[in-house]
């Protein structure tokens, strides 16, 4: 099969859609005023900002635009949500899961080092958090529960609504209400986000995961939620994210989410089909593989596969040489030898975890892309295994 370039790393980032880029361009050169300025230039920018905020609020079913603050990225949104609520509320305890993105996991670990209390809830073998365990960890000091909406490595969707119901019940009898935050970076643009239905107080989003630009994110903060800013220096974004507003990117991210929501149904179906084709092809053509993504509970775009007796790093590089972009675990964890915290948490054997790749599909992938991967990947796996002493020994037995 002829060599082609196949991008299967859409969970790491996506390209900016043409329509999005077009929407953004005027704000670099024509409408460049500082949205805080009094004059007409500033007002033009402010108008765009206001409109984007209103649109964005509607897209996630927020009650009012004031509940949306624009940030620099998903990581920043997560940090403001978790650290900001601990600073503003009585209590010192955060509950999260063992499989969070590092933006949440490291933030909570760091808080634990600084004298706060943090609990990390285990997950079942599909990756879904143990809600009973979560419940049991709640104390009078608990300020916030932060559970991701979908996991970045294996794609599993967490039972946020169920957790919300549990917390609402508990909150009935508490003065200091426990806040619920979800990192929706991996679901925005893939699932319809509805903050009412989810029942969350805080929700993080990142623009570049759904064909918007990099360097822009959002944080939904439910009206009445007490939260302290981490940065100081201005009134921008209701004081939560001081600094001149990045209007072009805000407009771009909003447009991207708008388009994604409009096309979600058909895109999801298409991507789901392609992902399953990839999964079935891998299982059929390659022996000794473990599919880590339970498709019953996962977003349609992600497929995590462990290839036994292989180092994921070799395979990743060989795929790159063949034009195929995938990822070992998540892009953020590359370069660490430890099996990923997510795979450990779902009970994957360390041996299998070593040879794990994440394929994440997007709107630009085609049948031909998957055909090409299914042509190349089995050969590469065979080649690496041939050089593995463990594999050869096994073949002899």
């Amino acid at each position: 099969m002829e060599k082609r370039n196949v991008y299967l790393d859409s969970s790491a980032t996506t390209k900016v859609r043409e329509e999005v880029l077009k929407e953004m361009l005027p704000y670099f050169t024509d409408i460049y005023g500082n949205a805080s300025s009094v004059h007409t230039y500033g007002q033009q920018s402010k108008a765009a900002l206001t409109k984007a905020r209103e649109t964005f609020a509607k897209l996630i079913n927020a009650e009012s635009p004031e509940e949306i603050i624009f940030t620099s990225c998903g990581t920043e949104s997560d940090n403001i949500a978790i650290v900001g609520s601990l600073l503003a509320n009585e209590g010192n305890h955060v509950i999260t899961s063992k499989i969070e993105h590092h933006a949440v996991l490291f933030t909570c670990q760091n808080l634990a080092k600084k004298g706060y209390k943090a609990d990390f809830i285990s997950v079942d073998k599909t990756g879904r958090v143990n809600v009973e365990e979560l419940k049991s960890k709640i104390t009078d000091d608990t300020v916030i529960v932060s559970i991701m909406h979908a996991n970045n490595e294996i794609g599993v969707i967490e039972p946020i609504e169920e957790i919300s119901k549990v917390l609402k019940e508990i909150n009935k009898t508490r003065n200091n209400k426990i806040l619920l935050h979800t990192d929706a970076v991996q679901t925005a643009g893939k699932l319809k986000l509805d903050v009412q239905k989810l029942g969350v107080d805080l929700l993080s989003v990142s623009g570049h995961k759904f064909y918007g630009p990099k360097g822009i994110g959002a944080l939904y903060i439910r009206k009445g939620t007490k939260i302290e800013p981490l940065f100081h220096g201005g009134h921008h974004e209701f004081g939560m994210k001081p600094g001149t507003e990045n209007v072009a990117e805000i407009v771009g991210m909003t447009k991207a989410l708008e388009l994604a929501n409009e096309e979600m149904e058909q895109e999801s179906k298409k991507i789901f089909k392609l992902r399953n084709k990839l999964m079935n092809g891998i299982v059929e053509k390659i022996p000794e593989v473990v599919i880590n993504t339970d498709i019953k509970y996962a977003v349609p775009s992600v497929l995590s596969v462990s290839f036994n007796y292989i180092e994921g790093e070799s395979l990743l590089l060989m795929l790159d040489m063949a034009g195929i972009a995938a990822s070992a675990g998540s892009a953020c964890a590359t370069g660490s030898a430890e099996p990923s915290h997510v795979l450990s948490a779902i009970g994957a054997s360390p041996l299998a975890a070593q040879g794990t790749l994440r394929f994440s599909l997007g709107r630009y992938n085609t049948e031909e892309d998957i055909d090409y991967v299914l042509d190349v990947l089995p050969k590469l796996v065979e080649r690496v295994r041939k050089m593995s002493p463990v594999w050869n020994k096994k073949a002899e037995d």
Partner: protein
Amino acid sequence: MEKRALIAMSGGVDSSVAAFLLKQQGYDCIGCTMKLYNNEDIGVKSRTCCSLNDVNDARSVAYKLNMKYYVLNFSADFKDKVIDKFVKSYESGRTPNPCIDCNKYMKFEKLYNMAQNLECNYIVTGHYARIEKINDKYYLKKAVDDTKDQSYVLYNLTQEQLAHTLFPLGSLHKTKIRDIAKENGFINADKPDSQDICFVPDGNYVKAIEKFSENKIKEGSFIDKNGKVIGKHKGIVYYTIGQRRGLGCFQKHVYVCNISAKDNTVMLGDQEDLYKKEFVVTDFNWILGVPPTENFSCSVKIRYKQKEHKADIEVLDDNKVKIVFNEPQKAITPGQSAVLYDGDIVLGGGTIAD
């Protein structure tokens, strides 16, 4: 199809220039840096070989040369095959040379496999040594720049590895290397040469052993030639054969002449007690793949930065070789490597036995 090469880039000036030279020769080059340990694990924040800064330097050069570049995480294997072995060697009274194991297990095993996986014809390093093909055999030779020659640490190479390895710096002088780096604006053109053992950046290898070992360092006795206890030592890992400093106060100059892990003793003696002619070398690798059929004479080097001396060689069974120097040599140290030379040509080498 153009030939493809995987360049092992440490972030230093040598491997950067090696990459440049290969690129110039028209190879399709892929750059990579082996990540061998986490800086926190070896207790440093500053720069050493393989630290994050070095990765950034290597990456900067690779991208400047328009090459693909990867960081390869070999830290688990490095711990198993190099650091742990280093610790065990010291704990059994020997003085290891971990760079030799790193070349053997990391560069020419793990990385070599990676090169094959990536369908590279060659693996390229910035070593100062030469490979020459004569009548279908590959010969490992000293570098042209005598002061930089690294052939000593490469004696474990096999014919197959030599056939797929390139040392582009082997015929150049170091000054020339720095000139090339400067001319091309490499970020590391003035970076100092790496020193010491990369995972013991402060040179305090005892501290490193304490950190990596499960065993506690135990004090023991200094003894004289007759086995009489003449003092107390801090633990055998503190000492190497021929050492004179740090032994404490004695009436005359004394030297470490023997280290016994079994008895936890360190034998001290006079300088002349250090001189020996005969010793055995184990795990011997012959560059040509097979040992010579007859005994012969050649030059032997028993430490990295020492001169070779004439010796008679007897090939024994089990990859062992007996070496008898013409003149007694000082401090033949178990754990170090003995490498055989015929002029510029490396015949092979192995580890000096107890």
